[in-house]
């Protein structure tokens, strides 16, 4: 009630606060993360000088941390755009404070994930050969294509809904003026402009979803297109997509909870949002388990020796620990905690979602390494242990992600203000009218001709 009396401008004051006031904590964290990133850079320069010998990869296990992290980060990137697009499409009203964060995650993580194949190259100096001699037949090129497309689409999809907010910042005279001036494209919120914006957003939503799905499918194809036992499987496409969305939601939840605490968004990100998202998480977890199960069952039942060897290597061999840990974190824990309303509290959700993110990383590990470590022919296998270089580059990537997120939060609102306002102003009537539209008509009203399409 007290809310409604205050003016819209200062009502959402807390959303502007992170942009306009910067505390010492920010610089401290930024410096810390920066240090990690710089160390990673140093390690990479080392690798560039000395070759991939500084990593822990070896003869049968020719792909290691870099590819694992590549798949992992791209997976995270599905958090954003896909989720927000889906939620927008079916007009889930509780989406409003979430979408922005989700989209930001996508944009940043895509950048980082896209870098990883380059880290993995033995001759980064020859990277341009991809442009000079590229073969679109190679799944790697499919990746290049899809990821660029996804990055383009999702950045646009991040930017377009942000225009009104930028305009608000411009009107408040927040520095740097020129930036907001330039990015807001003279947004005044006229009906025409709103209509353009809505239409553009609808197009993008429809565009982004298939692209997002294609991206992770194609990444799975990198593996599935080879004849290698444990990779050569048709389920990999959907399996990877589901896993990606799953880990994405996990990451989104972590981010939300953290920044909610840091920037005191408690009033915007309420328990209901987390509850809804965690239900989504639960659903994904079950789907993920279903796919994992069918993947392994088919491999196991066929008793195809090579397949079986890889599987035993995972289930009871050297990779048993990560495997069962993965099952615990990705299935047992979420189902145990999230399925009960009583335990669906924010701290437990935080624990679960961190677990999910870790578990999904383990899943990538378990997909990539064992298949290589157990080749068809009898080849002396050597254990794979990541070297300091690989570990520190992983740390740097994670640090870079947080850093990127913080910096973004310094320039743009993490929660889309205009959508919140729109929610306050129009959404309630709209929603109720929509719900009314669902209800059965009164017996005396005449049957309306045409389709009973709900008004927007």
């Amino acid at each position, binding site marked *: 009630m007290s809310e409604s009396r205050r003016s819209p401008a200062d009502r959402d004051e807390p959303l502007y606060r992170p942009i306009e006031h910067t505390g010492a904590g920010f610089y401290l964290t930024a410096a810390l993360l920066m240090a990690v990133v710089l160390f990673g850079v140093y390690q990479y320069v080392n690798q560039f000088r*000395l*070759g*991939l*010998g500084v990593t*822990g*990869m*070896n*003869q*049968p296990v*020719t*792909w290691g941390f870099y590819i694992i992290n590549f798949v992992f980060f791209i997976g995270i990137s599905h958090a954003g755009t896909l989720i927000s697009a889906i939620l927008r499409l079916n007009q889930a009203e509780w989406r409003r404070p979430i979408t922005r964060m989700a989209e930001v995650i996508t944009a940043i993580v895509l950048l980082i994930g896209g870098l990883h*194949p380059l880290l*993995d*190259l*033995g*001759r*980064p100096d*020859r*990277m341009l*050969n*991809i442009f*000079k*001699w*590229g*073969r679109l*037949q*190679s*799944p*790697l*090129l499919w990746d290049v294509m899809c990821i660029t497309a996804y990055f383009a689409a999702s950045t646009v999809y991040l930017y377009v809904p942000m225009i009104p907010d930028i305009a608000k910042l411009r009107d408040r005279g927040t520095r740097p003026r020129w930036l907001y001036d330039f990015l807001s494209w003279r947004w005044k919120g006229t009906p025409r402009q709103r209509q353009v914006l809505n239409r553009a957003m609808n197009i993008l939503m429809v565009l982004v979803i298939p692209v997002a799905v294609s991206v992770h499918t194609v990444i799975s194809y*990198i593996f599935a*297109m*080879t*004849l*290698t036992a444990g990779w050569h499987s048709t389920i990999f496409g959907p399996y990877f997509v589901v896993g990606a969305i799953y880990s994405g939601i996990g990451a989104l939840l972590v981010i939300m909870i953290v920044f909610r605490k840091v920037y005191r968004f408690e009033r915007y990100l309420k328990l209901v949002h987390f509850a809804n998202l965690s239900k989504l998480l639960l659903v994904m977890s079950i789907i993920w388990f279903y796919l994992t199960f069918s993947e392994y069952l088919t491999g196991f039942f066929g008793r195809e020796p090579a397949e079986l060897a890889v599987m035993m290597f995972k289930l009871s061999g050297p990779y048993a620990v990560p495997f069962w840990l993965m099952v615990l974190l990705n299935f047992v824990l979420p189902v145990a905690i999230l399925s009960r309303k009583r335990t669906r509290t924010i701290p437990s959700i935080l624990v679960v979602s961190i677990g999910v993110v870790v578990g999904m990383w383990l899943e990538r590990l378990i997909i990539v390494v064992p298949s*290589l470590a157990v*080749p*068809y*022919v*009898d*080849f*002396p*296998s*050597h254990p794979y242990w990541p070297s300091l270089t690989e570990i520190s580059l992983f740390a740097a990537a994670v640090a870079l992600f947080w850093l990127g997120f913080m910096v973004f939060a310094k320039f743009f609102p993490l929660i889309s203000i205009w959508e919140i306002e729109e929610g306050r102003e129009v959404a309630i009537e709209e929603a109720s009218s929509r719900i009314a539209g669902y209800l059965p008509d009164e017996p005396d009203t005449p049957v309306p001709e045409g389709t009973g399409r709900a008004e927007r």
Partner: protein
Amino acid sequence: MAKELSGSELKTRRWGMAVDLDRCTGCGACVAACKVENNIPESSPEEAQMGRVLRWIRVARREEPEGDRASVSLYPALCYHCGNAPCTLVCPVHATYKGIDGLVGQIYARCIGCRYCMAACPYTVKVFNWSEPRWQPELRAHTNPEVSLRYRGVVEKCTFCSHRLQRARDDAAVEGRDVREEDYQPACVEVCPAKALTFGDLDDDHSGAATARRSPRGYQLLEELGTDPAIVYLNRRERRV
């Protein structure tokens, strides 16, 4: 003197090899010959520990348990120059490709070192230069000038000593004839003390390799994958008393 031919006019062949497991004793002479012929650098003990020894051909050991004992077999494993090569499908920069006479080639100068071909090869015969190649200081100067030295960060593999094929083709072209089988032999075949390796044109029915391929003992490694390897193994005769 016949008129000189151009390389493209020469009869295309499908070079292949037959390995007689009845003769192969796993002595490793082929490995040594390959290392010398193709300038394969030495490994340090540390690299060996990590499993980064560079070998284009190795002698693999297979044990099929039979109660307390095992029937052991030793066989040389090298690039199989598949007719339908998985590695060439996935290379993003056309660095590994199907070359002349069906040999699977590798362009070291173009390889970007993504190691996708290694992951795609079901036979794990491709090797990667994890670090700068190393030789005994004096021996560095004594490398075979016909084979280019590779540097860190590129994938390499057996080429069936394609430089020898190149020379044979040039000679043949100059003399205006097709390449004869005796003109061209990889180093491993040439050196094998047990004469376990037979090299020849698989399309030519009379060549040793082709006849070996037809023999009832002959089998291809991982035939079921449909990669159609150019190397056929002759199984050991079962002659238990």
